[in-house]
């Protein structure tokens, strides 16, 4: 176990990071920041940045009080959607190693086809049993788990990510993750819900935070609860246009599953513009 000399290690590690990071340049001159005073809306970044930032912060809120999703005290900002983007939430089956055809596992008979993926290896499978969530008030975010010791499935390095056109609701797919979802690649099962299950997507501002409230159709609510219950203490992936933008654990602070009653919330440090754009990608939004 660590000895008392650890304090020197920690302090020097902290100072090293602080020193390195302090060389980062501000994203804008101070005058631009001052110009935004009085406004809460932030500068709208370009789409790529929006994707990256939004993905980095988006979370399907897995509320301790699931089923009692709180309503906003502030007026919602309604968004209009184009309906041209694909949206689904799927079970995450395992993490996959980066695509590396040259160092791929042997595949007799030639290259693997993207349409047929092998099952995740037992040790890499992100089953609730492997993840081993334990609600624990002293743990990160109120729980502890074995997630840190589950490694991506190396055999999947031989398989390219599924082309967006083949990301159909019923397919098991291999998709890249945005940084906010942990980066890397994910194997995801058939969609539990898709944009067609969303009755409305509303961007809500509350206490300076922006989130997206999803209200599901009655059939969608049932399907979402089915997925969330099946993935209780396991991971679901939010997929937008063939990329995993968020991959949260389902209700990790609870000891048993509770229904979402057709409401879930995608929240994080979103700006209104980011949230609006993301919500607009959801075909059911209006």
């Amino acid at each position: 176990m660590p000895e008392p000399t650890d304090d020197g290690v920690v302090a020097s590690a902290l100072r090293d990071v602080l020193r390195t990071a302090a060389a980062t340049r501000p994203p804008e001159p101070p005058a631009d920041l001052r110009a935004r005073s009085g406004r809460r809306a932030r500068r709208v970044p370009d789409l790529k940045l929006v994707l990256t930032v939004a993905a980095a912060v988006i979370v399907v809120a897995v509320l301790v009080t699931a089923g009692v999703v709180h309503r906003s005290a502030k007026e919602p900002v309604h968004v209009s959607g184009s309906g041209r983007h694909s949206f689904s939430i799927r079970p995450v089956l395992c993490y996959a190693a980066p695509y590396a055809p040259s160092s791929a596992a042997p595949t007799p008979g030639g290259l693997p086809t993207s349409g047929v993926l092998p099952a995740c290896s037992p040790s890499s499978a992100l089953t609730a049993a492997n993840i081993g969530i334990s609600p624990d008030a002293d743990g990160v975010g109120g729980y502890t788990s074995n997630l840190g010791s589950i490694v991506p499935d190396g055999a999947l390095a031989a398989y390219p990510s599924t082309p967006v056109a083949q990301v159909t609701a019923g397919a098991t797919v291999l998709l890249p993750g945005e940084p906010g979802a942990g980066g890397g690649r994910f194997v995801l099962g058939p969609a539990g819900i898709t944009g067609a299950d969303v009755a409305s997507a509303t961007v809500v501002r509350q206490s300076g935070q922006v989130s997206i409230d999803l209200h599901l159709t009655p059939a969608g609510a049932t399907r979402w609860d089915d997925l969330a219950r099946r993935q209780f203490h396991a991971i679901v992936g939010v997929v937008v246009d063939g990329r995993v933008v968020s991959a949260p654990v389902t209700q990790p602070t609870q000891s048993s599953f509770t229904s979402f009653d057709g409401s879930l919330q995608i929240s994080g440090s979103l700006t209104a513009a980011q949230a609006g754009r993301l919500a607009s990608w959801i075909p059911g939004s209006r």
Partner: protein
Amino acid sequence: MGDGATLEEHPEGQREDRGMDRRDAVGFDAFYTDSWGRLFAQAYVLTGDREAAKDLTQEALLRAWRRWDRIAGYDDPEGWTRRVLHNLCIESWRRATARLAVVHLATPTESPDIPVHHHELAEAMRSLPGRQARALLLHDGLGLTVPETAAELDAPEGTVRSWLSRSRKIVAAHIEQSDQPPVRRS
């Protein structure tokens, strides 16, 4: 990927601070330029996420500017901003609770500008209760004394000492588990 959607402007977006403004913009700009890197670095240690850290730093500085007529007169405007920033960072943990479970599975090589051990340190910090992480950052990272740290966190000094001791062990154990060196050897 197209952008075929529109977002109705929030009414708040229409408002603008105009009229009499006695705030010292030149002084604020100097403060911003001088303190930005240090504040960002602290947000980065607490969040492990460069984009989130930038956003939170901007938010804290925006709040400072909104009150700049008063804060400019404080002995330590950066200390005020730091407290706001640290609180924003800890709040962001709670919002990102579910994400944290998977964030440490990221492939660090996909962010070539960020050394691997930085991710690991930030991860270890997030494994601490919020005030304990702040205590460690203030004392071990920024070099505040125990009484100063205790004052900033509004906690008894004895409590801060035990937080520091416990937090160091947790963070050190986390760093030791990794294959990467905790401190860059140059």
